[in-house]
């Protein structure tokens, strides 16, 4: 070891690289790598998956714009739209991390929030349809046929307000563990929507 490379004890003690410095250097390095033209090649399998997911989301969003809000469980709502548009949801649900579209839970809540954002649901609409799904799983919410949406011609906003009122009544009967899960789901969904607004 040369004298030049010997670290005196007092030198070691009087300076510790600040966290901000490490972060700025890492960020600069990551950005240089990001801008570089030397990048990995994407597999055909991945390309095909992206095409399928994008097409599914685009078509679902178009369907959703026609229908608007409807107080049915989120899974039934999305699945009915997919059936109408002749779409498979499999790749999209895997990408979103949703294992069962009919059973929202705290683990899949982020996926439902991302799905809601992609389809153009407001935060209130996404939360309402998730809460309807949970209420329905206990048989505590009336089933309103999807086709009735077009017969009644009620405004989506009125549907949403009525739905929220009904949910408050139903949820007052829930046990603590269910309420706990519901709060966790709501917190996750709100967090994703909040990130989206940043």
């Amino acid at each position, binding site marked *: 070891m040369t004298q030049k490379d*010997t670290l005196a004890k007092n030198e070691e003690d009087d300076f510790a690289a600040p966290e901000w410095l490490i972060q700025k250097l890492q960020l600069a390095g990551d950005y240089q790598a990001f801008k570089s033209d030397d990048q990995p090649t994407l597999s055909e399998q991945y390309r095909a998956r*992206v095409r399928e997911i994008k097409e599914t989301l685009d078509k679902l969003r178009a369907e959703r714009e026609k229908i608007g809000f409807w107080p049915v469980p989120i899974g039934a709502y999305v699945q009915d739209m997919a059936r109408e548009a002749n779409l498979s949801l499999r790749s999209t649900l895997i990408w979103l991390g949703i294992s069962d579209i009919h059973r929202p839970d705290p683990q899949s809540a982020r996926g439902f929030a991302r799905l809601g954002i992609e389809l153009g649901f407001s935060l209130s609409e996404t939360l309402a349809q998730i809460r309807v799904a949970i209420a329905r799983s206990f048989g505590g919410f009336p089933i309103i046929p999807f086709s009735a949406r077009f017969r009644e011609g009620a405004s989506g906003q009125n549907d949403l307000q009525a739905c929220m009122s009904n949910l408050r009544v139903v949820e007052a009967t829930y046990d603590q563990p269910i309420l706990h899960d519901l709060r966790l789901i709501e917190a996750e969904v709100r967090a994703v929507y909040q990130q989206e607004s940043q």
Partner: protein
Amino acid sequence: MLDLDPAISPANSPTAISSGEPENQMEILALRLAQGDDGVFWTLFEIFGPRLAGLFKRKGVADTDAENLALDCLLTVRRQIGKYQRQEGGSFMGWVFTIAYRKWIDWRRRNLTTLPLDDDLLNRSKSDGTRPLEPFIEPEVDHESPDERSQAVHDALKQLSKDYQEVIRLRYIEACLDNAEIAARLGITVNNAKIRLHRAHKRLSPILENDNRIKLRK
């Protein structure tokens, strides 16, 4: 509709942005996306898909998760393109990078495991082929534009000796090597690599702290 360089068309699927003035081409793509030209999505996918997946893998995300996050970013770019405004010292590339970094921070936060407070563990060399565990402190990705930050670091590095530049580049810029790897690359001892890095940090710190392009948390 704006005329676009034929080199940036979905048919040519460019990963490299090498023709004409790349920054202007990117800004035109951003503008077209903002105007609702959804066909641009696939051009952006070809340009940014590999970059995003590559960034996430560099940050320790497994392959499938990296690809999923890359798609999440691209859809976010499409949704939020209306928020993009080119600012002095900034770029569309930098804006996408910032979105990606936020996604990674969020992923990292959700996948964070509790680390034992054990210095040996934190400093352990990767004899088992894994990286030493590092505590996660969320980077301040929004404080300045990636372009300005990069330029400031680049300018600061030029003020260091060649030896110190070398260790910083190997640690942060061109690779993410640890002390043992830097030592092997440079043919010096691990202790010497550690000392050079320490001194390089020490010299860089005041230079960047006094650079008004670098914003620090108050």
